Every structure is written in structure tokens, then in C-alpha cells.
């Protein structure tokens, strides 16, 4: 081995604390990059492979009722490859515990071979036409611990039916299973999908020869025309009452999955860049210090006949060693970590074809990326090698010029500052660049730590905002069909309800210019006690007598704002199209809706005193009393959502814990390295202090005071930085379905500060050990480089 390389290895061994801490930062960067990228790609590929195998639809249409022959006619539309009518309906499922509310979606399955959204049988056999059998969606099957041969009892149209479970199946339509757009998270025990033979669904739900749901596939070559094809389909089906028409991009499960892929990619890129940037800056500061300290050694090497390039490479190899060691260990870790991530996804998502595959490209890219960062940092840090002239290197360095700080001109203040604090302040003012980076590093640590702390509170905030401030009802009762409002007081007689209001919730197509969305518009009383509407700026507003109020997600999609006149078209047949003024935009974190006064709704519907459901305030469990009531299709409560949330707590805690740990690694690496650099730079100064009678504790106190001051500045700077990061994450994960509130509890700031201080203290302890072991007197006479 070349002697310079041997020297490098021994230098690394001497500074192993710095080497290891920086290598860990690189390892984290590489693990995040490789494993997240691999999982993201694998997730994406397996989703599309799954779609391919199961012939996943491109367009999904909900209609009131459409005859089978009309469905077949859609094949004549240019670009349509295949169509399939289905009968789909959400019904209650009878379970042992009468207090437990379980809904299932009954989905009909045709008997022909080439099905759209065909089922992926995981266990059991295919459905037999003409039998009372059902294939159960995997998540629900597992969530309710079912077995093949079990009997399920859905309550359809006032009748209980017994269906034998013949298979556990997966479906591309429900990789991410949620009851509707208002549900935030899957509830694997409370909502499931039962696939039944078509003729059973048609007879039980009263759809003989007709359907209420159509799935469409389009030719591969026509995929870019999907919106036009959807419009054509809409035109054809308009008279049958379209409740919604959704393309694959807006499909609930699909968009959640794609968003998951995107956020993994975003995470893999942004975290990697943050970590590599931090590692690079610290490496560069450390190397520039090493080069400075090695000035005489560099002079000697030049005197011996070593060229600039050889000497520069000698130092750059330090950073290459960090990059390569970090890459190798990172790769070794990233393979099991990515398979752990895959397991986690397999557990929470349901893609039968999803498995861990190692993509060598990412291993190579990762190594190249980290090495490139480290080499650049190395060159940047060690570039002063080139400027050192061998003759100058042999002469003692001129002392750094010292001058008064601006703060010293405040005599009254300065004269009261103790000597050791004066030293602290002077040192800070003399090493501005390093101090700046240390403060920035602590701020970054604070911000990176704040993100998981914030994210762990966000769900509570979200629930609080959505269910306590915006939607105040305890129960939302849905009727099977619009009823006369006279039915509402009747409900109060059946159970204990403190207060009840009617609502009309119907799908409408809203059009502003060329943008249109089919959404549920909800009509409630103007003086409703069930909703608290607030504009994004936080102002409380009441429902206007005339006009419509849009939620912010919807307003964004339509690019509509208060004052705009938009078209509102009922998807029910026989109701004429109208225009309406947007009176306000209100905040709603999940689900996109529009709201209006119920009387305004009647005007649009050209009908009076009807209700599609009711909103109730009560402490009583009304679901039990109302479960057999005819004409009630569903009873929803926010408590169900809170319960389903619990299921995800472990996952959230695990991922947030990992993020906090990353923040800690970053904080430690920054504070430890910068302090070590600072100590080695000031070793002469400390040695002189030792000679003057300072003991090691006094010197440690000096360094601690500096770091404490830096930490305070770092925390102050970290707060806005952390807020922006949280805001950035919130903005990036907001989808068409939900937005997250960037409301940060003061406790989040506090806990993040506590965590950051702990990280700094750990680094401080390592520094203390270093100071304790330093031989100051030797340093004064040392000429060995």
C-alpha cells in the first residue's frame, strides 16, 4: 500500500468519531435513496402489472339505472375497448355484535370469461353462477378473520340473505379500500366488498336486466383521449342519471396508490439531498481544517516532490472513503430495509404481485450519487492544498488579526460580561462562517425533527378541525331514496336524538368554463347547527340564502372563486340545467363538496320538502335502534373514523420514529464534527489557557457555552424553517381528496426543541470525552504533522 494511503488510513483511525458520524449520515442518505426508490418503482410496476393481469378499467360510471343493451351500445364509441355493466350497492352486514356497524359493498360479477376488473383469487374457487355464494375482498376477509365456507348475512332491500364464502380475492379497484372519499383511512373490519354472481345481485337489489354501474376499458392507443371518451359516454348515458363518472386518474384507490408512489419518490429525493448536502458541507469544513492543520506536512510533501494532484487526492480520498464506506454499508442495509418496507406495504396495501426486487441500477446510482457528493465536498474542502507554497508552509502561520466586535462598543454592557463569556463572544465573531453553519445545522436538525413530531399530531388536528369545528353532527343518516321531510321527526320517535336536521345530498355536475367536476352538493338549513363554515383565512361564515359555497379543494379544481357564476346540472333525469353564483370558498380537509341552503336546493331540484338523509346530535348509539329501519341505507359516525385511525397508529409511530432518528443522526453529525473542528483549531489557545491555570472543565465550559448559544440561535432559526418544511410536506401530500391543515401546536415546537437539545447534548458528551483526552501541553510543542 502506498505510504500516503497508509497515512490516510491512520488519520481516519485517529478521527474515527468524525469519520463514523459522517459515514452514518451517508448511510442514512443511501438507505433512504435506494430502499425508497426501489420500493416506489416496485410499487408502481406491480400496480400496473396487477392492472394488466386483472384488466383494470379506465373509466367508472355510476348511474341510477341503465338497461343492459345501452351498456353494450357504448362499445360503438370510438376508443372504447370493452364495457361491463355491474350492480353495485352498499348495504349493512349483519354481524354477531349488534352494536357493531359493518357495511359491505355488493358488487356483481358477470359469468363471462373476459371480465373487466377481474378478481384475483388468493384462496378458494371462482364464483358459480346461480349460487348464493360470495368472493370476499382480501382486506375484509383478513380483517374479520373469515374462512372459506363461512356464511355472511348482508341486509339487502329489507331482506337478510345468506351467502357462502367461496373465495378470498384481490381486486385492482380496491388495493386501497375506503368506503368513500370522506373516509380518510381504510376500516378493514367495518367496510368490505362482497362479489356475488350477477343474477343474484340483480334480483336482490331489483335490477333485473339493468345495471347501476359501468366499467369501461379503452384502447391503449386512445389513452390520451380518455377525457373525450368519458364525455362521449356521459352524453350517451345522461338520460339515465349519471351519479358520477370517474377516469382512472381520479379513481380513489388508484390515486391513493399513485400518490403513495409519488411521496416515496419525493421522500427518497428530498431526504437524500438534505442528508448528502449536510454530509458534504461537514466533510468540506472538516477537510479544510485538516488541510490547514497539515500545512507543514503539505509543505514537506511538496518538498519531497509530491505534485499538487497527488496531495489533493490524498485528502480527497478521505471523503471518498466516507462515500464508499457509506455506500457499501448503506447498500447492505438498504436491501433488508426495502424488503421490510415492502412487507409493511403488503400488510397495509393489497397487491398480490408486490414483492421485494433488488434493482441493481439504484445500487449503482446511489453509490455514484453519494460518491459524487463526497468527492465534490472533498475537492471543495481540500482545494486550499493547491495554494500552499512549500516555502510558505515551512514558516509559522501569521496570527489571525483580532479586532473589536460591534458589541464591544456598548461599554456598559461589555464591561459587565465575564472574561470567559467575552472569549465565547469573540470566538463566535471570528469564525462567522463555521458558526453560521453550526446554527444552520442545528436549525436543520430542529426542522427535520419537527416534521415527524408535527405529523404525529396532524391526525388529531385533522379530526378536531373536520369533526369538531366543521362537521358537528354525531351521526349522518342516509336514506335509500329521497323521502319527504316529514319522515325526519319520525326518526326521533324511534331512538333518542337530541336534535335532528334534514339534508339533501345529491351529485351535481358543476362547470366553470371548460372545467367540470361531479361532486355531492349538500343542502342544509341556513341556520344549521351541524356545520361550521370557515373561509381559508379563518373567518366564520353562514350559508347564503342564494348561491353556492364551494370547499377549497373543489374551488381549486374548478379554478372558481367567490363571485363566479357557474353551471349546476343535476345528474337526475328531468331537472333542467341552471347557473348559480359562488358566494364563498370554505375550508374542508377531506372530501370535496359544495354546500347550499336547502331551500335553494329545492329551487334547483324543482321539488320541495324532500330529504336524502338527516344529521343528528345525540350521545346515544342510534345505529342499533335504527338498523332495521326501512329506507335507511347507512348510519355514519365520526367515531368510526377515529377507530379506524387507531389501526394505523403503529405504522405512523414507526415511520415517524425513523424520521426523528434521522434528525438525531443529522444533529449529532453536525454538532459533533463542527465542535471537534473548532477544538482542533483552537488547541493552541486552549493549551495556553491550560498553562494559565484553566482546567479541562473550564475549557469544556467554554465550548459548551458557545454551543449553547449556537443552539439557542439554531432553535430560533429552526422554527420558521421547520414550519416551512411541515407546510411543504402538507402541500405536497394534499390530494384531490384531502388537504392537511398546517396548524402547528405550540407543543410541537416545544417537543422538537427538547429532542434537538438532547441530540446536541449527546454530541456535546462526545466532545467532552475528546477534550478530556487531549494532551494540551504536548500540543504546545508539537511539530509532527
Amino acid at each position, binding site marked *: 500500500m502506498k505510504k500516503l494511503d497508509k*497515512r490516510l488510513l*491512520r488519520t481516519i483511525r485517529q478521527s474515527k468519531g468524525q469519520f463514523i458520524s459522517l459515514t452514518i449520515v451517508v448511510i442514512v442518505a443511501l438507505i433512504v435513496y435506494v430502499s425508497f426508490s426501489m420500493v416506489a418503482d416496485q410499487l408502481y410496476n406491480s400496480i400496473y402489472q396487477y392492472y394488466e393481469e386483472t384488466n383494470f378499467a379506465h373509466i367508472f360510471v355510476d348511474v341510477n339505472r341503465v338497461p343492459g343493451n345501452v351498456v353494450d351500445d357504448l362499445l360503438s364509441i370510438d376508443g372504447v375497448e370493452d364495457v361491463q355493466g355491474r350492480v353495485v350497492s352498499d348495504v349493512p352486514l349483519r354481524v354477531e355484535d349488534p352494536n357493531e356497524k359493518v357495511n359491505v359493498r355488493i358488487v356483481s360479477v358477470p359469468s363471462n370469461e373476459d371480465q373487466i376488473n377481474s378478481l384475483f383469487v388468493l384462496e378458494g374457487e371462482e364464483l358459480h353462477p346461480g349460487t348464493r355464494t360470495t368472493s370476499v375482498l382480501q382486506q375484509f376477509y383478513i380483517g374479520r378473520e373469515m374462512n372459506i365456507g363461512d356464511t355472511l348475512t348482508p341486509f339487502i332491500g329489507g331482506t337478510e340473505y345468506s351467502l357462502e364464502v367461496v373465495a378470498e380475492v384481490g381486486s385492482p379497484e380496491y388495493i386501497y379500500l375506503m368506503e368513500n372519499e370522506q373516509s380518510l383511512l381504510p376500516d378493514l373490519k367495518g367496510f368490505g366488498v362482497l362479489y356475488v354472481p350477477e343474477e343474484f345481485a340483480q334480483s336482490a337489489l331489483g335490477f333485473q336486466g339493468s345495471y347501476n354501474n359501468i366499467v369501461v376499458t379503452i384502447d391503449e392507443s386512445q389513452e390520451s383521449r380518455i377525457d373525450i371518451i368519458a364525455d362521449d359516454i356521459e352524453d350517451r348515458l345522461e338520460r339515465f342519471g349519471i351519479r358520477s363518472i370517474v377516469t382512472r386518474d381520479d379513481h380513489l384507490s388508484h390515486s391513493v396508490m399513485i400518490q403513495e408512489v409519488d411521496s416515496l419518490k419525493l421522500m427518497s429525493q428530498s431526504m437524500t439531498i438534505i442528508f448528502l448536502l449536510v454530509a458534504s458541507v461537514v466533510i468540506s469544513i472538516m477537510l479544510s481544517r485538516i488541510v490547514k492543520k497539515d500545512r*507543514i506536512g503539505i509543505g514537506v510533501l*511538496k518538498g519531497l*516532490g509530491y505534485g*499538487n494532484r497527488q496531495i489533493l487526492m490524498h485528502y480527497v480520498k478521505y471523503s471518498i472513503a466516507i462515500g464508499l464506506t457509506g455506500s457499501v454499508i448503506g447498500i447492505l442495509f438498504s436491501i433488508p430495509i426495502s424488503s421490510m418496507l415492502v412487507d409493511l406495504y403488503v400488510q397495509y396495501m393489497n397487491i398480490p404481485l408486490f414483492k421485494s426486487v433488488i434493482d441493481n441500477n439504484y445500487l449503482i446510482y446511489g453509490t455514484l450519487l453519494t460518491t459524487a457528493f463526497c468527492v465534490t465536498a472533498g475537492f471543495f474542502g481540500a482545494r486550499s492544498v493547491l495554494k500552499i507554497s512549500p*516555502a510558505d508552509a*515551512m514558516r509559522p502561520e501569521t496570527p489571525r488579526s483580532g479586532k473589536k466586535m460591534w458589541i464591544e462598543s456598548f461599554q456598559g454592557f461589555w464591561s459587565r460580561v465575564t472574561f470567559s463569556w467575552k472569549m465565547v463572544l469573540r470566538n463566535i465573531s471570528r469564525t462567522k462562517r463555521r458558526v453560521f453553519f453550526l446554527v444552520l445545522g442545528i436549525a436543520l436538525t430542529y426542522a427535520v425533527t419537527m416534521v415527524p413530531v408535527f405529523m404525529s399530531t396532524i391526525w388529531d388536528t385533522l379530526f378536531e378541525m373536520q369533526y369538531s369545528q366543521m362537521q358537528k353532527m354525531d351521526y349522518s343518516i342516509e336514506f335509500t331514496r329521497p323521502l319527504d321531510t316529514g319522515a325526519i321527526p319520525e326518526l326521533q320517535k324511534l331512538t333518542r336524538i337530541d336534535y335532528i336536521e334534514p339534508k339533501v345530498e345529491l351529485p351535481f355536475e358543476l362547470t366553470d368554463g371548460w372545467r367540470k367536476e361531479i361532486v355531492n352538493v349538500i343542502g342544509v338549513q341556513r341556520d344549521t347547527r351541524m356545520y361550521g363554515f370557515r373561509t381559508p383565512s379563518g373567518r366564520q361564515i353562514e350559508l347564503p340564502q342564494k348561491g353556492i359555497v364551494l370547499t377549497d379543494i373543489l374551488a381549486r379544481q374548478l379554478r372558481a372563486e367567490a363571485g363566479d357564476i357557474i353551471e349546476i346540472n343535476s345528474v337526475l333525469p328531468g331537472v333542467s340545467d341552471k347557473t348559480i353564483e359562488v358566494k364563498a370558498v370554505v375550508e374542508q380537509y377531506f372530501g370535496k363538496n359544495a354546500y347550499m341552503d336547502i331551500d335553494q336546493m329545492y329551487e334547483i331540484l324543482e321539488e320541495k320538502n324532500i330529504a336524502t338523509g338527516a344529521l343528528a346530535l345525540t350521545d346515544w348509539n342510534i345505529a342499533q335502534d335504527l338498523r332495521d329501519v326501512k329506507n335507511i341505507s347507512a348510519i355514519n359516525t365520526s367515531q368510526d373514523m377515529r377507530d379506524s385511525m387507531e389501526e394505523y397508529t403503529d405504522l405512523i409511530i414507526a415511520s415517524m420514529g425513523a424520521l426523528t432518528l434521522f434528525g438525531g443522526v443529522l444533529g449529532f453529525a453536525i454538532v459533533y464534527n463542527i465542535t471537534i473542528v473548532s477544538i482542533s483549531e483552537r488547541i493552541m489557545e486552549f493549551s495556553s489557557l491550560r498553562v494559565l491555570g484553566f482546567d479541562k472543565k473550564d475549557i469544556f465550559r467554554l465550548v459548551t457555552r458557545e454551543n449553547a448559544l449556537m443552539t439557542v440561535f439554531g432553535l430560533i432559526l429552526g422554527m420558521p424553517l421547520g414550519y416551512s418544511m411541515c407546510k411543504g410536506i402538507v402541500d405536497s401530500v394534499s390530494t384531490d381528496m384531502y388537504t392537511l391543515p398546517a396548524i402547528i401546536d405550540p407543543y410541537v415546537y416545544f417537543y422538537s426543541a427538547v429532542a434537538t437539545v438532547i441530540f446536541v447534548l449527546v454530541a456535546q458528551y462526545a466532545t467532552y470525552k475528546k477534550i478530556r483526552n487531549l494532551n494540551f501541553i504536548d500540543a504546545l510543542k508539537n511539530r*509532527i504533522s
Partner: protein
Amino acid sequence: MSENILLKAENLSKLYQMGEVTVAAVKNVDIEITKGEFAVILGPSGSGKSTLLNILGGMDQPTEGNVLMNGESIIGFNDKKLTAYRRDKVGFVFQFYNLMGTLTARENVELATEICKDALDIDEVLETVGLGDRKDHFPAQMSGGEQQRVAIARAVAKNADLLLCDEPTGALDFETGIKILGLLRDINKKYNKTVVIITHNVPIGEMADRVIKMRSGEIIEITENSNPIDPERIVW
């Protein structure tokens, strides 16, 4: 005579700008060093001898004048050529040894020889400097004299024609200093190397073939010494 000249400096000057004042560290120096010679440049602190040595060794550039090594001018050499000059033609010995603390004695010597074409046998050189049994020790485990021996071995093992020594005894006690001087004399004889020592220590001049005295950047006297004494007889 001229073909016997190893190194020649012509009208060499080195000026430093200190604010508005120009300081001449070396002024119009002419000097010739012959092959196999043992020369001592004598002068008090600040007389410009280190600057002169650095220029002769290709470590620094003069403001004016020329330096010829075996008749070839090294002034105007680019960085690469100057590096090659230092690597192949010159061996340096410094006052404070300047060894690499993380390398053993042997490795410190190897560090220099690795990049040379015709390096001498390292173990033999280490034997010559009296460190045959200390070669695996690190500088921190050695005395000052031993460290200086390593530095001399490092300069010698390169097998360069010229050994430039900057106050080689400056950091050593009297006895050790004398031993180091003896060693340099032996190397001068054994390997036929040209040795130039700079020092402020007047008695050292007695062992030289030629003494070049400097003051305020100028050469004030060059004395041929027809009868150099043995280093062991030097007293200061």
C-alpha cells in the same frame, strides 16, 4: 571547473512587499555549488539564508535572477517540472524534522522513495543513519536526534544529487547535533552527495569545504576551507 558545477545561482534576488515597503530577503546573490561539495551557508537570523535555500531547492521562486542545475535553468519551470525537480534532484532536511506522525520511521522514508526512480535501499540507509533497530517506531516514540536521523534518511534515500539542510541541528542538544553533523559528513563521503547546510552556528563552518557567509540578504564572504575538521572536534 564548469562541468563540475552542480548548482549555480546568478544574480538572485527575492523581494517581499510589506505594505508600502519593499524588503529584499535575498539581494543579487551569485553562488556556485560543485559536485560532491560540503558547503555551509552561515548567517544570523533574518540574513536570507532560508529563503536562498528554498529558491535553490525549487520550493520558492526568486523575484530576479537565475538558478541552474547541471546547467539547466529551473526558473520558469512550471509547477509540474518544479515538482519533478524537487523529487529527483533535491533532498531536504528541516530544522524541525517535519516527519509524518502517523507513519513509522521506515514508512516516512518510503514516503519519499515511492515517487523516485533510483531510490537507494531503505534498510541500508536506515542502517547508515543508525536506526536499523528503530525503523518500526513512530516519530512520537523517538528522540529529537532520532527523528532528525529519519529526516536525513528520507532525504538521502531519494538518491538525489543535492542535500539541502535547513538548520539541521537547530532543535537538538549539542551531543546529538554533533552526531547529526557527523552523519551528514559520512553521507557526503559514502554516497558522494553534495550537501548544503544553512546555519547561524559559526563553528559548524569549520567542517565545510566552503563557507558562504550572508548578512541582510547578501553574500559577504566565501571562504574555501582546505582543511575541514572532523565534526566531532567542533565545539559550540
